[in-house]
C-alpha cells in the first residue's frame, strides 16, 4: 500500500499545528522542517502569528525557500532585523511563545541530547552541541522538537548526555505526535497509516497511549502550502524520511 501521507509531510504539518494565533514563534539553524512548518502556517492558517528566525527575520517575505534554515533570505522583506542576542534575550525573559529546537536523542521527560552519542569525553559520535536548546528549552513558554527517525535509539529511556532540560511541549516523528503532560511525553496521536502498537514498540521510553488517536490528515490548505513550498520535492528528498 503506497503511503498517502509521507513522513516528511507528517512532520512538517504537525509541527505547524503547534503554532497558535498571535504568538511569537521561532525557527533556528539546522531546522529545515520547522522553517517549512512556519512558512506552511503562514500560507495556510487563517490567523496572524509573529514568525522570527535565526537569520534575523521578523515576519519576512522570503523570495525563495532556502536549503539552509539560517539563510539570510529568511530575513528578506523583514521590517526589522532581530539578531541573535535579541531573540535569545526575548526567550530568557519569558516572551518567546514557541521555539523549534533540534535534538538527537529525546527521553520520556522531554529532555534532549545534542552533544554526543556515547560518553561525552569519549564520544562514539560527536554531535553538533549545545546550540539553542540548553538555554531556550527551559525558558521558552513552549518548545517543540522533531526527529526524522522513530526508534528506541532516538526516543530513549536514558540520554547519553543531558544537553537540555525543561519546557518541552511537543515532539513530532514520522509516525507520532507527543505532548508533554505532567512531566512526561504522552502520545497524542499516531500516523493514521500506522498503529498504536507499532508506535509503542518503536519508542524507547514507556508511553501511555490511552488518550491517543490517529492524527487527523492534512487539510487541503496544508497539502497545497507544502506543495507550493517544495514543488520539486527537493526538501523531501534531502530529509529522506521513511515511516520505517
Amino acid at each position, binding site marked *: 500500500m503506497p503511503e498517502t501521507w509521507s513522513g516528511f509531510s507528517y512532520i512538517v504539518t504537525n509541527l505547524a499545528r503547534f503554532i497558535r494565533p498571535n504568538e511569537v514563534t521561532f525557527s533556528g539553524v539546522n531546522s529545515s522542517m520547522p522553517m517549512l512548518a512556519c512558512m506552511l502556517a503562514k500560507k495556510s492558517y487563517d490567523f496572524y502569528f509573529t514568525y522570527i528566525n535565526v537569520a*534575523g527575520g521578523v515576519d519576512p517575505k522570503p523570495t525563495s525557500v532556502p536549503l*539552509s534554515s*539560517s539563510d539570510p533570505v529568511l530575513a528578506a522583506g523583514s521590517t526589522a532585523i532581530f539578531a541573535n*542576542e535579541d531573540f535569545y534575550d526575548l526567550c530568557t525573559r519569558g516572551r518567546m511563545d514557541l521555539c523549534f529546537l533540534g535534538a538527537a536523542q529525546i527521553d520520556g521527560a522531554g529532555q534532549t541530547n545534542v552533544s554526543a552519542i556515547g560518553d561525552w569525553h569519549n564520544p562514539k559520535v560527536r554531535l553538533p*552541541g*549545545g546550540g*539553542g536548546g540548553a538555554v531556550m528549552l527551559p525558558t521558552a513558554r513552549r518548545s517543540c522538537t522533531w526527529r526524522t527517525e522513530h526508534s528506541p535509539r532516538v526516543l530513549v529511556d536514558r540520554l547519553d*548526555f543531558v*544537553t537540555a532540560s525543561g519546557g518541552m511541549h511537543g515532539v513530532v516523528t514520522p509516525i507520532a505526535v507527543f505532548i508533554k503532560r505532567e512531566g512526561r511525553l504522552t502520545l497524542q496521536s499516531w500516523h493514521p497509516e500506522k498503529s498504536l502498537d507499532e508506535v509503542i514498540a518503536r519508542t524507547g521510553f514507556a508511553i501511555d497511549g490511552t488518550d491517543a488517536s490517529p492524527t487527523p490528515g492534512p487539510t487541503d490548505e496544508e497539502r497545497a502550502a507544502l506543495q507550493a513550498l517544495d514543488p520539486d520535492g527537493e526538501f523531501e528528498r534531502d530529509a529522506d524520511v521513511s515511516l520505517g
Partner: protein
Amino acid sequence: MQPQPGSRDAPGDKIKSLAELASMIPDGSSVALGGSFLHRGPFALVRELIRQGRRDLELIKQSPGYDIDILCRAGALRRTRAGIVAMEGNFGLARWYRKAVEEKEIELEEHACASLTAGLRAAAFGVPFQPCGGLHGSALPELNGWKWGEDPYGSGEKVCLIPPITPDFTVIHANAVSELGDVRVLGTFHWDRIMSRAARRVLVIAEKLLPIEEFRKQPELTLVPHFMVEAVSVVPGGAWPGSCWPLYEIDYPAVRAYVDERDRDLSRHLEAAVEREARADA
C-alpha cells in the same frame, strides 16, 4: 573634507592586504569569528591563516561550521569554545571537526550559544561573570565547572554565572568598511556586535570600501565604529563558499566539493578560493 589617515583628522592607515591581516594573528591566539554557519563568515582570512601555516589557534564562535571544519582539517586548531557545530545547508555534520573531537586532536568547551554570548558579555561589560538565563537541568554547567549564583534579593532563583570570554581577536566579514575602519553589515549581524566588544583586537574583511561620506549619511548602519577596529582588508567575495547577503548566496557545488574530498589535502580547495587573485595582487 576627507580625513587623511595619519593626520590629525584620522589615525594611521588601516587598510592591509589579506596576507598582512592574517599575519597579525600569531600562533596560539584565540580568535572569535563572525557570521553563522555558511553565512558571512571571514572565510578568506581563515584560509589565509591555513596558507600561512598557523598552529594552535582557539576558535570562539556560537555556530561555526566551514571555518572550524577547515581549521581542523588543516591541523591549525588546538581548542574551541563553540555552541553548535555543523556544515548546515543540507551538508550535515562537520566531518573534520567531528573527527578532531572524537580523536582528541582538539579540546572542546561545549557551550549553549547563549552561554557563549554571556561570556562575551562579561568581557564586553567589564564584569567578572555574567548571569545566563536557562541552563537549568543541563549537564553543560557541571561539565564546564560553571558556578550557580543565588539571587541576593531573595527570589530563591538560581542562575548560572558564566566567566568572561575575551578573544585575543575578533574577525568580522563585513559588507563595507570606510577607510577609517568603520564597519557596515547588512541583514542580521549574528553575534558580531558582542564579539567586537569583547575582544582585545578587532580585524575586518570587507566586500568593499565605501566613501566616508556614505557612513556619515547613515551612521546608524555602522556596527563597529572605526576606533575599535585595528585593521581591515578588502576582499570581494571573501565569505566564499558561504553567502554574503545581499551580494551572493552559498556556492553549493563548492561546499559539496569541499565536503566530498576524502583526504586532508586542501590544495584544490584553497586554489579555487576567490581570494587567490587578491593575494596575487598583494
